[in-house]
């Protein structure tokens, strides 16, 4: 699992690459910390190269949403594959995120 944080057009974009599973979660959790502290900028979780997401990954996405949304900023999930989208749907989280 690789993560890369970039600033693009005044938005913070976190690129996820590979499998976001239980083993990868602790590192990913650390990587998203700057997103949670950010204010006044929208966040994009780029999943174009994300092959799989587990419950641990969902929890990380939810924690970002929980930190960012009360500040009035948006969290967008971008480039999600059909199989990862199905995980969001099966678990009932499809209406919680904004997809790009």
């Amino acid at each position, binding site marked *: 699992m690789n993560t890369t944080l970039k600033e693009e057009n005044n938005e913070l974009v976190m690129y996820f690459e590979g499998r976001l599973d239980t083993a990868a979660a602790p590192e990913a959790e650390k990587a998203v910390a700057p997103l949670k502290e950010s204010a006044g900028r929208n966040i994009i979780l780029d999943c174009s190269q994300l092959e799989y997401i587990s419950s641990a990954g969902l929890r990380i996405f939810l924690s970002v949403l929980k930190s960012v949304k009360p500040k009035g900023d948006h969290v967008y999930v971008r480039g*999600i594959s059909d199989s990862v989208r199905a995980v969001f749907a099966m678990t009932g989280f499809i209406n919680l995120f904004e997809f790009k």
Partner: protein
Amino acid sequence: MKKVNLDQHGEALLQQYRDLRPTLEQLSQQAYDLLRQALAEQGIYVTAIEHRVKTEQSLAGKLELKGAKYKSIDDVTDLVGMRVITFYTDDVDKVAVIAKRIFDIDWQESVDKRKLHQLDAFGYNSLHYICRLKTGGPRFELQMRTALQHVWSTIEHDTGYKGVVKIPRKYKRQFSRLAGMLELIDDEFSRLRQELTDYRRQIQSLVKSGQLDEVPLSLESFRDFIEQNHFDYLNKRIAAVNQAEIYPVSMMPFLPVLESFGMETLGDVQRFMEENGEDAYQLALTQLAVTDLDILSSSTALQYLCMVYVLKHDGGREGLRFIFDTINGESEANGVLAEMMLEQAETLPFMQKNQ
């Protein structure tokens, strides 16, 4: 800037004001913070709280007109002014009660303009308190009025005081008539709010007593229904498949979906749950049992119930897509998702019966 001619006394008062200005700025902010916090604690939602320190120009104008009336700058009570604009007339009185609690009120100087009018006259309606912080310091003015009173007085002030021409009686009368009309509207809004509160209580009581067929499906009633934890049993049953944690989310986005199914009362929603609960569980089981997903949103049960309902009513792929489009915005990807969900559902008994 308009030229103002002040006598020696007026100039002395103006100098006192200049010396006091930093204290006034601090007072303005302190009084505002105190009131804002107290209103928030009491859950009183107002349209605006304004605060300002009187400008030197404005004070000079006042002193030019009636400077002799003031012995010292402390006698000018509106150097700091605060205004609370409420939605409802009864909220003006609630704000006043709070002001009495957090500030010391100078009753000699305070005035309730609402009580000054003759029975057959209408005009400026506002409650003015001259206050002081409990810790002491200069006095300040607090005006409390409704949004409609504010509109009236702002327009009346704008047209009445700006011009050099005296306003003829017939136009003054028009202003009074408008004030009367706005007073009536203010009272109607308050009455409407009270009636809506009574209606909500009545609906809550019907929901609590289980008379669900009597309760029309609406934003309010559906919220009450959710708060009664009607979806908890199915959520817990589904969560037990993977010993999952249930993460609380809003279920309100599903209301338009239920309405599209033709549900008109909470009784319809209750029957929808009873008739589709087992199949919704079976569908969730089929999807989740082959995964290790141990976190589910609290809307999971409702989502599976909606999916089952659509499939039982021959909604097929398009019906499933409609659900996802409704709860998460229209997208082509929802079509693919609907296709996947449909494939997984096809082996279930309720789908066989449909064929």
